[in-house]
């Protein structure tokens, strides 16, 4: 395919081979195609020169395993098939592949599935006993489904076995460790740690003008950090519509991801935790441990949803349809004063356009533990329980993605070897610090002193702003070590319960039903789901998953 140049065309015009109109048309075509063609040629050239490397060398995780030879190869001839959501968290698995294969003689096949198809595909495999997958990365709420179905191998025996790379269960902060275990046994190998923290713009909160104006409006000093949701609502009211956005655009008080099916129920869980959970009620949130009656219509829950609906009016209306990216992008582009979400945002805030990201808020993003309340509704006592200090509850809402080994695995030990390799300290530390692979910090060596044994330099080396990194790691350390934790539901059908909550929550947010009606409707769906699975079975699972007597 040769492109005639303008010059050749011109000669054709002069010599009468082309009419004027043809000339203009062809010239225009060249005008459009030439840059476009050049553009793609450039793409092809660049591809030939530098094949994109998935992990930049400067943040690559160090090698841990030593290559084997001959009989030293533990799993020679075996193949491990590893199922993982097609997410950033797949990066370490690909990264570790060569090292694993060299160290054991086994082969590692990685199967990527869309996030929403991973569990269905895994469950289809194990429920029918096929065994096509040896290991899979799962979200923590799948664990109940899989353990209750008797589909997984407990890894406790392998933990001390020195044939495998060594990693310590104790290095995982308690809240996350609980998620890896079920009914006294350990099923997950340490990997990702999820929880929602509270993010806000350090620069806005320390701005004297805003401080003065806020005090005039709210009657008290702008709290930095805010410690109760009441304060957050006041602050959101103050900042909403103020021209703090880029180029003096009007900004929003808060941003959230509230679309149905996009994990908006996690927002409610995090938000409502301190309205229900407190020192005298550390665990009852979802169901009564006597008969599985839903508790989500308690006065505490109702107060929480009313607050959340009020808060949702202080952000862009569009967020009713937002998933994580849209909401994060909004914060990253400097248009929101506050948000609460997962650790990814802290890492993404460091990805400035020069680094290929979209963040305009590097160095301005302060992370703290999510705020609390001054009073919660104690379900056990059936009464409001005021607290002297803010009642702040930690959470592990989210996936906390981690690998498990299938009971039908063809090469279970080799599969465990890969997972253990990724869980070793040098590797896990590198994953958490670089952030872009979505493995969020949750182990003692991820946190700088005095919280843990890590160091802030790892983060700075990976491109973090030092203050941002300090606040961030401290916020997550607090969140995961808080003695009060949001009770994480992990029984069969969890996703169905959650989606019922999610759907009705969205109805309340978009004014299709009142907040109270939404919770009532969700509770009534909870009952239907429980009935269908069998109340006794569900009650058993519920007790087992929380370790009730």
């Amino acid at each position, binding site marked *: 395919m040769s492109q005639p140049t303008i010059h050749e065309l011109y000669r054709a015009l002069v010599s009468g081979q082309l009419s004027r109109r043809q000339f203009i048309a062809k010239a225009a075509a060249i005008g459009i195609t030439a840059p476009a063609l050049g553009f793609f040629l450039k793409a092809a050239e660049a591809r030939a020169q530098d094949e994109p490397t998935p992990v930049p060398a400067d943040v690559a995780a160090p090698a841990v395993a030593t290559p084997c030879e001959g009989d030293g190869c533990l799993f020679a001839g075996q193949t491990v098939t590893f199922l993982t959501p097609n997410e950033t968290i797949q990066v370490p698995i690909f990264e570790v592949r060569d090292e694993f294969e060299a160290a054991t003689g086994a082969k590692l096949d990685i199967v990527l599935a869309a996030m929403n198809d991973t569990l269905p595909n895994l469950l289809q495999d194990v429920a029918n006993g096929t065994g096509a997958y040896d290991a899979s990365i799962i979200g923590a709420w799948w664990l109940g489904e899989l353990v209750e179905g008797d589909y997984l191998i407990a890894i406790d025996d392998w933990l001390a076995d020195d044939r495998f790379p060594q990693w310590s269960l104790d290095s995982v902060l308690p809240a996350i460790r609980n998620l890896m275990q079920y009914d006294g046994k350990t099923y997950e190998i340490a990997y990702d740690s999820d929880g929602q923290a509270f993010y806000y713009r350090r620069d806005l909160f320390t701005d004297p003008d805003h401080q003065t104006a806020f005090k005039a409006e709210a009657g008290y000093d702008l709290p930095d950090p805010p410690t109760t949701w009441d304060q957050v609502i006041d602050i959101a009211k103050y900042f909403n519509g103020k021209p703090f956005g880029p180029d003096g655009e009007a900004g929003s008080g808060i941003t959230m991801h509230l679309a*149905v099916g996009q994990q908006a129920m996690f927002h409610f869980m995090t938000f409502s935790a301190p309205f229900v959970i407190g020192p005298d009620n550390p665990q009852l949130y979802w169901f009564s441990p006597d008969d599985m009656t839903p508790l989500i219509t308690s006065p505490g829950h109702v107060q929480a949803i009313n607050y959340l609906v009020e808060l949702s009016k202080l952000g862009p209306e569009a967020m009713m349809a937002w998933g994580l990216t849209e909401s994060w992008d909004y914060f990253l582009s400097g248009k929101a004063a506050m948000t609460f979400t997962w650790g990814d945002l802290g890492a993404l805030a460091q990805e400035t356009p020069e680094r290929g990201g979209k963040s305009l808020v590097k160095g301005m993003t302060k992370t703290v533990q999510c705020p609390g309340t001054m009073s919660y509704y104690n379900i056990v006592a059936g009464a409001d329980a005021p607290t002297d200090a803010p009642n702040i509850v930690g959470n592990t809402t989210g996936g906390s993605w981690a690998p498990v080994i299938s009971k039908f695995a063809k090469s279970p030990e080799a599969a465990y070897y890969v997972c253990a390799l990724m869980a070793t300290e040098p590797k896990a530390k590198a994953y958490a610090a670089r952030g872009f692979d979505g493995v969020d910090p949750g182990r003692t060596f991820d946190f700088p002193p005095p919280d843990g044994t890590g160091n802030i330099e790892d983060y700075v080396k990976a491109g973090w702003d030092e203050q941002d990194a300090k606040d961030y790691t401290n916020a997550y350390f607090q969140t995961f070590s808080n003695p009060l934790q949001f009770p994480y539901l992990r029984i069969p059908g969890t996703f169905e319960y959650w989606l019922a909550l999610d*759907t009705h929550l969205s109805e309340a947010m978009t004014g299709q039903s009142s907040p109270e009606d939404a919770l009532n409707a969700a509770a009534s769906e909870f009952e239907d789901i429980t009935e269908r*699975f069998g109340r006794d079975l569900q009650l058993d699972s519920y007790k087992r998953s929380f370790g009730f007597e």
Partner: protein
Amino acid sequence: MSETTAPDSIGSTLGAPNTARASRKRDRTRWYFIGPAIIWILLFTLFPLLYAIRTSFYAFRSGKMLRWVGFDNYRNLWEDEALRSDLQRTIVYVTVVVVVEMVLGFLLALLFNRQMRGVSSLRTIMVLPLFASPIALGYLGKTIFYEIDGPVNRAIEALGGNGIPWLSDPTWAFVAIMIVDIWQWTPFVFLVSLAGLQALPQDITEAAEVDGASALQRLFSITLPLMAPILWLILLLRTIDAFKVVDIVISMTLGGPGRATELYGFYVFRTARRFFNYGSAAAQGYLLLVIVMILVSLLWGRIRNLYEHDVEAR
């Protein structure tokens, strides 16, 4: 109608049973033609159909059959308010998109049924939406209908209007997914109708024009009756497929906000693939089968006269 039926009635002697032997032979021959397709379909759908029926009598837990529940899954269909509202919503959806697609597609076909240079390129372009993956379209829809700075809202604002809450407002979100469906399938109606129009005998319309019939008269008394068999066919195919829309919802709204865009096909999909409640999903699937087949039979009753006269006439 006499113009179209005339050639067919002449053909009615074809394969006529002259003798009993010929009749038996014809008996066998006809099954040679239709047999392979029937056997093929039975081979591939009989087991799944029976399996799904069995499934529909069980409760599931963790992806495994838990226990026999008799007709509970079917009984639950009547008590499931979400399902009922989804079904109503789906009927609205199907009615609106199919009607709009039929009307738009046919009108455009009428408009462009002329000798013009642009028209042939239009036909070429109109083939493209049929091949766009609905999953991808849903994702694309999210950017196109993006409320802050999205292209649609920017265009509206440039024309002096206010941005529309395309995805965050229950009603508009419903409109948005319908627009995507209409974008993808109007070309189908357009292409089929245009081809049908171009195949109409020119002399009839021209004769009518000479007789002084107005454009509207020609449309209603000549074009529409002649086009009826094709239009009914399109209507039938589109209706069946519109009832099953899943992919656009999966990728664009996941049924939200609230349940505003939760269509029946998506509901069944989610029951099976997200909740692993295969029993209820099977029952829901059969309910859809019954409803759509009733509709198809009603439509078919109308079409039969237009469509089967030659076979019946024999």
